[in-house]
């Protein structure tokens, strides 16, 4: 049956692994469209993953309520981390790059997330609640598309709705227009009476919340549980930042890009499965590192292709990205 073939498995894994990237990238996209680069995605995701997992351990009740609360908790955790970045870069006008790097180090696998996980003994607790696949549309058994798109968890379906919301918000609403103005020309936006700082704060915080939800995809759905160290998110935050560049700062391209990068992230696992099923050359089997490194190498390749071909014209990048706005220095 075609629905059990390797291709379908790889494609559905691509959607599974692409979903956290999609959440984090949409969040980063919102922050960047308002002119704030936040390199702390990796740290915010990991902290969101930790908080989300902690909530499932503390709250008792049905799966649905507990998981909803866990996602909210993860969002709050991510937003709290983003608030540090927002305060430093918007109010105190610190360097966005350095502050973002500091956030990743502070919140990441050797910092707050590890501290939080250790203090609450998260690693010793077995997973009690996790997102299972649900067949909302009744299309689960359709050939190929069924298992790839319609046999997924609620997180996946919600991410589609979110993509639509973000695309419509940025493209079709007054607020979205204001955000773009703040990101492209903050001085003009300020003169129009748009609160530059307020818009930036809100979008950085929402961006952090979405990164937190992206992190929760790992601890609640993909590999339910908590592992100390950086292995849970393992660079996905950085791939999400690359994804924003790849999608030219457009939400709708983020969706396609997320599944492409998701396929890259799922590749090691798929290859591993394949090499045990069919006999591949012994060298491949003996060197899992070679294909574990593939997602990172391919991300570089994608970035290079993008930057040589189109981004020469800085297509899509908000003009004021990374520049602190100071009204009195216009």
């Amino acid at each position: 049956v075609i629905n059990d073939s390797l291709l379908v498995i790889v494609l559905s894994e691509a959607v599974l692994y692409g979903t956290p990237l999609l959440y984090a990238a949409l969040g980063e996209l919102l922050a960047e469209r308002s002119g704030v680069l936040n390199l702390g995605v990796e740290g915010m995701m990991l902290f969101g993953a930790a908080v989300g997992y902690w909530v499932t351990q503390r709250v008792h009740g049905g799966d649905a309520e507990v998981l909803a609360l866990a996602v909210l908790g993860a969002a709050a955790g991510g937003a709290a981390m983003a608030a540090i970045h927002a305060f430093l870069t918007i109010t105190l006008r610190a360097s966005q790059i350095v502050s973002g790097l500091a956030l990743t180090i502070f919140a990441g696998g050797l910092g707050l997330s590890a501290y939080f996980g250790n203090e609450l003994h998260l690693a010793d607790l077995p997973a009690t609640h996790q997102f299972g696949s649900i067949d909302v549309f009744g299309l689960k058994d359709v050939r190929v598309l069924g298992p790839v798109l319609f046999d997924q968890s609620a997180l996946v379906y919600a991410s589609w709705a979110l993509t639509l919301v973000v695309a419509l918000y940025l493209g079709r609403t007054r607020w979205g227009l204001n955000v773009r103005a703040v990101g492209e020309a903050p001085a003009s936006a300020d003169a129009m009476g748009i609160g530059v700082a307020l818009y930036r704060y809100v979008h950085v915080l929402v961006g952090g919340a979405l990164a937190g939800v992206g992190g929760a995809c790992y601890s609640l759905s993909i590999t339910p549980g908590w592992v100390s160290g950086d292995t849970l998110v393992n660079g996905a935050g950085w791939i999400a930042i690359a994804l924003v560049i790849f999608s030219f700062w457009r939400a709708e391209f983020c969706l396609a890009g997320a599944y492409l990068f998701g396929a890259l992230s799922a590749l090691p696992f798929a290859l591993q499965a394949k090499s045990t099923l069919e006999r591949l050359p012994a060298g491949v089997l003996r060197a899992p590192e070679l294909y574990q490194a593939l997602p990172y190498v391919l991300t570089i390749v994608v970035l290079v292709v993008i930057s040589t071909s189109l981004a020469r014209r800085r297509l899509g990048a908000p003009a004021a990205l990374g520049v602190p706005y100071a009204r009195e220095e216009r």
Partner: protein
Amino acid sequence: VIRLERRLERPWWLSVAVPVGSLAVAFAIMALVLVASGHDPWHTYRELVVSAFTGNGALSATLISATPILFTGLAAAVAFRMQLFNIGAEGQLYFGAVGASWIALRLGDHGVGSTPLYVLTMCAAAGVLGAFWALIPGVLRAFAHTNEILTSLMLNYVAGYFITYLIFDSASYWRDISTLQARTFPQGKPMPSGAEWSTFGSSVVVPLGFLIGLALAATVWVLYSRTRFGFEVGVIADSQRAARYAGMRTRRKILAVMALSGLIAGIGGASQIGDFTHTLDPSGLQGAAFGYTGIVVAALARYNPFAVCLVAVLLGGLQNAGFTLQGVDFPSGLVGVMQGIILFCALGGELFLRYRLRVVRRVRPQPSGGPATEGAR
């Protein structure tokens, strides 16, 4: 309302008061975190100082932790100074360790015994490999305009998998397969005894690598503040466009700075092999995250090479205390949290270096003054 005014000149006392003040605020915030998680901050801080600096043999242990982050801190400072955000010191250090251990094992096979020869060749091989690994994002940035932050970071993961492959999943030259135990529990070959770098001092043991790091810091300072190269780096940092109009070759500068940054990080890898581990240890290197701590060091030192030395010792002390105190009183992860908070406070504190805060009364807009205030905006 509080208004910010850009400072035209900076009083001398401010460059002392602001870092000290930031540090004090950082420790105050940390105290809150400690209280919130049920620890006694005063007790923890006293333990911290004792096991980092004043205790018996504490300073020697601190220098061991300070040495690698001195290298990675310098590597980051050199690149960040030109607004070139090489965050790949982590991977460049791995590659330096690979190069240094390769040449040391080779020389050992030929029965060479002279330690100075080992030190020189290990640093050279490590520097070359570190520079090579840094040149990948450098070339991509210079010729393809690819964001060096993302590429250099991705390459950290690639380098991590590469050294894991060398020791755990291949019969490479670096792997020890001489005994049955070594075949079951993969580990790197031990270095020949000549490749163990010497140490200096008796009451406080100073590793050779730390001295090499200090020498490199002095070299970087001379290069950046006393030469044409350093001047051009400064101009490019301020405005690439102005630099290009002035006829400076920005591409070459990007390549040179990336190579220099990678070279320094690579030598850090050689120092890890020669000074401390004496074998290529992938899990140890990846767990330590020297490269990322180096970014904290460089940022706290505001990219000044001499300040990098000082900050490396301070943060080295913090890390060392973290290792010794690890347990109920001092949970793991706390060191990273403290580093982050210190860095956040330092970043926030820079505002006071650049701006003056002035409390002004909100002026009520008067009907007749309308056009005038409109014009003042």
